[in-house]
């Protein structure tokens, strides 16, 4: 750590002297020096004001400068925020221990004085995979009393889901129940989390620093170091050129899955297999125009689109800056306040929660405006309650070592009919219908430490990726081909029809031939009278699969969470139970242990 005026009790000159001396010391010298200083201090026993104050008093209570940050992250957002908080806190002189919840030794919890939690919520209010054991421990009987713990929770979520930030809320509540006190109130963040997250961090730092010497001065802007390696980031996306856009599904398919190749040239962006790519899409202009027809304002009127005061034409802002395809509860509440619509107020009354939930399902802003009218006095007021256009995350389908300066994606087109109108996935249909080679797409890399190949290239891997879940495994295999990894590889893939939906078929065939891919099993659910899925293929080969597990294979699952991931999870337990002659509970423990050891990783959505 570099000593500065802002993060230490020293003046400029002292800090510089120490900075030049300290790095040259050996461990023994450091120990000797600290002993010498402490001894001299106790001998002199002065109470002078210029004595260094390492610990400050606050309300008579000692505040430790040790802070533990735990994160639970599915896509990497919470982890990124946790890492950012860690570096800021270190910059403010705190000693930070940062860890994912799954890596954290729960015994240490009792000794922890300051705990920060950054956690996302997944699916229907579920905790992310790498929080499961910690979550269970904390909510179980073995949870310790946490009197004396000071904590704060940063919760991430998506307000279009019913159980918004549920996991964060649960941790927040539970820590309180166990005797902890909040050093800063929980912050629930929606998809555009940057502003609330930095507000939370400032609050936390200021609370932790209260009463400390020069704490007030310490708080301001020590810029986040995460992502500083590249100038492009989530908040400053790179405009990547589209090199290729191919529909991977053959004629006659029910599916439309686009293979997108983007250029990263000049971006300095790097990624590893398992990482994701964020895309900032645009809304369908047809949909925006339909919405504009319901509104009285001039499409060319200028509106402010963010706190920085950036200006845009109203129509353009609805295309580029705001989300118009999802109705969040909070949007409806704010709209009700602004419009005063009686029906809307009625819908929001206690007791109507079910009706409200039902109404929100499968409807968008156009439906809402048609049903309840507009709100606000101006276009500006109208957009003021809209969510910022959130980025869409896609698992990266290529490897930088195989395709330097490129990133490939596998995007399934989402189209469905709802309430009498055809609905289109914002980003997927942009890619399917409108994106042409040569177009530019704002993107950023979302690192995901929770979906990484084993460190040891000899470790066998089992990959389960039906549908677009195949994407990261294309990246894995490309990477292994380049690095000549020796570990065996086994891929399970499934979709509807063999003839039209075997994504990247010729590539897998090639890799099977060259041996980069050891084994592949496919299940096409609509080719046979009886539907066959990947988990059926796994079950058919349970003996061999268990053998792989026993030999240390790591298992990766990517794709649909609701059905596939759950079924595959249960199938794994079933296989372990059967082939390992174990009780159900032991099989579960076996899989949990794998998870703990990063041998069972999921990237599900």
């Amino acid at each position: 750590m570099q000593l500065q005026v802002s993060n230490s009790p020293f003046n400029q000159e002292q800090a510089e002297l120490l900075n030049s001396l300290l790095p040259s010391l050996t461990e023994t010298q450091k120990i000797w020096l600290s002993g010498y200083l402490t001894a001299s201090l106790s001998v002199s026993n002065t109470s002078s004001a210029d004595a260094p104050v390492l610990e400050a008093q606050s309300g008579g209570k000692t505040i430790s400068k040790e802070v533990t940050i735990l994160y639970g992250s599915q896509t990497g957002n919470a982890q990124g925020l946790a890492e950012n908080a860690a570096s800021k806190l270190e910059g403010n002189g705190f000693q930070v221990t940062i860890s994912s919840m799954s890596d954290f030794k729960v015994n240490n919890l009792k000794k922890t004085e300051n705990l920060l939690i950054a956690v996302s919520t997944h699916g229907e209010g579920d905790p992310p995979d790498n929080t499961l054991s910690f979550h269970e421990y904390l909510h179980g009987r073995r949870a310790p009393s946490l009197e004396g713990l000071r904590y704060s929770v940063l919760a991430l979520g998506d307000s279009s889901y019913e159980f918004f930030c549920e996991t964060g809320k649960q941790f927040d509540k539970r820590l309180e129940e166990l005797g902890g006190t909040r050093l800063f109130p929980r912050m629930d963040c929606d998809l555009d989390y940057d502003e609330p997250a930095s507000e939370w961090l400032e609050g936390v730092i200021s609370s932790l620093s209260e009463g400390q010497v020069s704490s007030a001065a310490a708080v301001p802007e020590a810029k986040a170091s995460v992502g500083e390696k590249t100038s492009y980031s989530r908040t400053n996306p790179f405009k990547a050129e589209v090199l290729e856009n191919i529909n991977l599904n053959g004629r006659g398919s029910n599916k439309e899955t686009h293979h997108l190749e983007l250029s990263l040239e000049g971006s300095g962006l790097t990624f590893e297999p398992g990482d994701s790519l964020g895309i900032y899409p645009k809304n369908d202009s047809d949909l925006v125009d339909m919405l504009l027809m319901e509104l009285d304002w001039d499409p060319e009127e200028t509106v402010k689109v963010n706190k920085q005061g950036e200006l845009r034409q109203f129509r353009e802002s609805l295309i580029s800056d705001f989300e118009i395809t999802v109705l969040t509860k909070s949007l409806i509440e704010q709209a009700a306040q602004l419009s005063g619509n009686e029906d809307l107020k009625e819908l929001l009354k206690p007791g109507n929660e079910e009706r409200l939930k039902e109404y929100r399902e499968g409807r968008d802003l156009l439906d809402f405006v048609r049903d309840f009218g507009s709100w606000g006095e101006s276009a500006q007021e109208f957009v003021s309650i809209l969510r910022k256009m959130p980025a869409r995350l896609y698992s990266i389908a290529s490897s930088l070592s195989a395709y330097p300066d490129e990133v490939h994606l596998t995007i399934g087109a989402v189209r469905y009919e709802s309430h009498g109108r055809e609905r289109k996935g914002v980003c997927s249909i942009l890619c399917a219908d409108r994106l042409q080679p040569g177009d530019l797409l704002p993107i950023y890399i979302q690192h995901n430490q929770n979906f990484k190949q084993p460190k040891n290239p000899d470790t066998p891997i089992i990959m389960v990726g039906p549908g677009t879940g195949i994407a990261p495994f294309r990246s894995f295999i490309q990477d292994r081909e380049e690095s000549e990894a020796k570990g065996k590889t086994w891929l399970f893939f499934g979709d509807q029809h063999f003839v039209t939906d075997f994504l990247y078929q010729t590539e897998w065939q090639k890799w099977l031939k060259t041996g980069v891919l050891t084994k592949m099993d496919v299940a096409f659910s609509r080719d046979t009278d009886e539907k066959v899925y990947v988990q059926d293929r796994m079950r058919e080969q349970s003996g061999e699969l268990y053998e792989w597990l026993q030999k240390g294979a790591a298992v990766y699952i990517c794709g649909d969470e609701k059905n596939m991931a759950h079924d595959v999870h249960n199938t794994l337990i079933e296989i372990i139970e059967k082939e390992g002659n174990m009780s159900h509970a032991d099989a579960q423990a076996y899989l949990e242990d794998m998870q703990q050891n990063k041998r069972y990783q999921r990237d599900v959505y």
Partner: protein
Amino acid sequence: MVNPLLKAPAGPPSDVEQIKERSDYLRGTLGKVMQDRISAGIPDDDNRLMKHHGSYLQDDRDLRNERQKQKLEPAYQFMLRVRMAGGVAQPSQWLVMDDLAQKYGNGTLKLTTRQTFQMHGILKWNMKKTIQEIHASMLDTIAACGDVNRNVMCNSIPFQSEIHSEVYEWSKKLSDYLLPRTRAYHEIWLDEEKVVATPELEEVEPMYGKLYLPRKFKIGIAVPPSNDIDVYSQDLGFIAIVENGKLVGFNVAIGGGMGMTHGDKATYPQLAKVIGFCQPDKILDVAEKIITIQRDYGNRSVRKNARFKYTVDRLGLEPVKAELENRLGWKLGEARTYHFDNNGDRYGWVKGMQGKWHFTLFVEGGRIADINDYKLMTGLREIAKIHTGDFRLTANQNLIIADVSSQEKEKIIELLETYGLTDGAHHSALRRSSIACVALPTCGLAMAEAERYLPVLIDKIEAIVDENGLRNEEITIRMTGCPNGCARHALGEIGFIGKAPGKYNMYLGAAFDGSRLSKMYRENIGEEEILKELRVLLSRYAKERQQGEHFGDFVINAGIVKEVTDGTNFHD
């Protein structure tokens, strides 16, 4: 057994010979590769063996480039051909084929130029089920392709029913007698358990031997005056000799075949030549011995010179005949006189023996399908449900609803009318005398369109025909997508062989009765030139022809093309 005066060509065995050698009597690794789920295809070696099981791998060539870009393998699918001697199918069998085409095929059936059903578009995982269902209907696909005796053809003449049934029985006996004996088919497709080979059982193929034949082998039986099966195009042709209403025996013709290779004058179509006569009950013996001669002396080094016609031309007709008689242990009789009128079909209703009726339906390109308002496939399905006679697939890709009783006839007529199925009388006689092979998109050999294009071309030729008052003039017109000649182009009065997309070699001058080959008239021409040429030729024919002179004869008599007197001067 081997005659020292005769020799097989020297040279290393061709790739297919080696594949057969390794195959353990046509098994190869078919059992295993058919189980593989990663590709709908099978390796080339196994595909060569697959032919002997009546099928081979194809892909939809229309989609080839598109799918490659999509990172999908070619749209692999199997063609499956039924062994059905003489083209006779029971209504129950028709219904099974119809059902399989809907369930596993591309929803259509092809009636081939060798009188059998062909299905396209069957996926690998449906092959076993399909073959098993065909087997359950008392048909099979054994030896429908490959280096063995193929489907035995037989005249389907409707008005001589008694002779027909007798001749048909012989074609069936030939078909069964000449089958490969290996159990490979039963093991791979019908789940028969493999018998562990003992030394005695090693003699699996007493006639074919381990390597089977050097090339495919085709047999057909004609009943004069109809040469509908193009007896001269067969490796081995039998011409039924009927005297006083009784079948007395067969003239034997050997060494015909249509295939050739563009640009290779060592390959050519050839007509079979009559070498003698045999009693009906000697037909199996003659066929077996001819086949063993081809087995022993055929070219196993160069496949495109491996057909029996080249063996005969190389060894000479007389030495082959002598060798045959040597192997038979008796001499052929002197060939009897016979006369052919034509090689086409007679359409519409005719009354046969025992008061039974037969209806010959015009099926353009042999394709049984529901296309727009023309519900041919549905109509035939409905007919098959009530029909008590049988169906006969003709060598000209048409269909005879045969053995209809007087009572049944009314119901059949009603169904024919309901679905608009006819003898094609509203078409020109030229269209009704047309044949096209499958070609694109499924045939891997096709260089140009045939079945999909010929009807379109005929639309335009019909205008010329009408201008010249030739609407009722039967002129045989045949189009084949490559020079292998499944549509017997060299025996069409107007013949086309595909050269490249939209380009054809045009041939003229074959005999109306199938007794003379055609000659190339124009090379590598497109539709515009084809029509330009035909406008001149047909107009001349209309004006200058003699009474009863067929178009094929006219072009020779008028000096438009030179007469081909033998396959060996086809290219001159």
